[in-house]
């Protein structure tokens, strides 16, 4: 485990010197937290959320509100629309870090001396994977914390605040988020092992976020509604996706391939 920790530390001290990586890691969570907070502030301030009647909401929305009053339910439904934005962070941030971390090794030819040490492929990938995934997961959790804090400051009803600590949000932020980060890292490793340009790797790996964007569109259009059952299914599918992507990433990350084909 010492080697894994050393790799994480080394990656962070190298990768975060890159302004683009630093910018994406800090700016994206700030933006994706600020947008919901601003919208929420404007809705709470103008009372727009209360102006909807519960009758206008689909039965799915009504079912998730439980004992909430009409106005509270409207606010909670609006808040739930923001959930996919918090799932974008663990999908996007690791792509930038992993792309620069792996393609960086490729272009600076630092991988051969590293592979000549007794480190195993699993330790190496775990170190690099965690170095990319942890900042994204931590940023997502911090952003979620700030969002909840913002909701408290805006004096949302305690019954709505309590909803943040129920299964739906907790599974989304603390299970789906890390699973997305892992999938994103594995995808970035796969792409990075086939290209020599960090930006190209980042752009291609960025396609990984499309399913999350699709989730936002589906949620906003009412095609789906994120409730506990759906988020659990998403988590389950992500576990399978992670297993497949990690398997492919490890298969593609063969020492011999790296040394003889990476140019």
């Amino acid at each position, binding site marked *: 485990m010492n080697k894994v920790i050393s790799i994480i530390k*080394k990656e962070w*001290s*190298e990768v975060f010197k890159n302004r683009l990586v630093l910018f994406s890691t800090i700016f994206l969570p700030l933006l994706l937290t600020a947008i919901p907070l601003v919208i929420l502030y404007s809705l709470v301030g103008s009372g727009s959320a209360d102006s909807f009647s519960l009758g206008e909401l689909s039965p799915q929305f009504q079912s998730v509100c439980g004992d909430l009053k009409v106005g509270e339910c409207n606010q909670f439904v609006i808040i739930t629309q923001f959930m996919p934005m918090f799932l974008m962070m663990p999908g996007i941030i690791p792509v930038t870090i992993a792309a620069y971390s792996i393609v960086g090794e490729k272009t600076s030819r630092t991988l051969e*001396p590293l592979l*000549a040490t*007794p480190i195993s492929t699993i330790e190496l990938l775990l170190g690099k994977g965690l170095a990319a995934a942890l900042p994204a997961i931590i940023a997502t959790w911090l952003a979620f914390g700030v969002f909840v804090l913002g909701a408290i400051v805006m004096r949302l009803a305690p019954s709505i605040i309590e909803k943040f600590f129920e299964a739906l949000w907790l599974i989304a932020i603390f299970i789906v988020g890390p699973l997305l980060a892992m999938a994103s890292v594995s995808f970035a490793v796969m792409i990075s092992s086939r290209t020599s340009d960090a930006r190209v790797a980042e752009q291609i790996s960025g396609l990984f976020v499309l399913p999350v964007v699709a989730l936002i569109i589906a949620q906003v259009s009412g095609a789906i509604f994120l409730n506990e059952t759906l988020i659990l299914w998403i988590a389950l599918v992500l576990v399978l996706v992670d297993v497949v992507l990690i398997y492919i990433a490890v298969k593609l990350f063969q*020492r011999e391939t790296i*040394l003889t084909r990476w140019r």
Partner: protein
Amino acid sequence: MTTETVILAKNLSKTFGANVVVDSLSFDIHRGEVFGLLGPNGAGKTTTIRMLAALIAPTSGEAIVSGYSVLSLGHLIRRKIGILTESPGLYDGLNAERNLSFFAQMYDLENPEQQIEKYLKMLGLWERRFDLVSEFSKGMRQKLALARALLHEPEILFLDEPTSGLDPEMARLVRDFINEVREQGRTILLTTHNLDVAEDLCDRVGILKTRLLALSEPGILRRDLFGRAVVFHLGQPATGYLDMVKSLSSVQSAEAIENKLVLKLADPETENPAIVRILVEASADIQFVGEIRRSLEDIYLQIVRDDEAKQL
């Protein structure tokens, strides 16, 4: 140097698709020996080092390094070896000390600070230890990469083109350092284009061009290929003495070039006095006698050209 074999290659081959990069390579290297692999670009030198370092698998054949097979015990081999890759491969965004401490952790060193200090001081980089590697010159990078290769005190050192691209002064420093390392009794396998380096450092050399074309001590290769030639500088044109020396049984061949007689002899130390006497009796004014020393470059070029001629 002992007779204990620490590297043994047996019919080692590597192909990439249809391209044969290394073909049936067999040799052994003894403990404490400095062995040079010489060859043109694309001859398979780096691929050979990578196979011996258990970084890539041979297509066929086997190698035993420090008692472990490269086919199955690569992780144990990697603990016993240090490698200087063709490109130093350092982390530019980290300082020199941090580069080494990272690798010290990869080897689970118990006293990393002590080792880092030892090698940074030995290579004259101690004062620059907190400087970013991106600010280092090529020579300093190469020295740092050497320090990294030695940090865990490996018993075998693989050096891929250790002086490539360095200015003469830095190349000399690196060369001297390798000599120091050699005196510590480590086994070194180096590849180089710089035949002076090979001549200076290597106990034995192998000339590689996909196959191993020759393998021996530089002195033996020299003798086998060129014999020993002695030049007699005369005070007059040498042609007048050519037939006379050619008739001597000890002279394998003779050539007259202006005032010089060039004779190929089996044993100059024994045969020179008699030849000198005969020339003096024939009124030759002998100004100077010396042995023509063929360089390793001559040997290398001769072997590679002979091989090319065979291929035609």
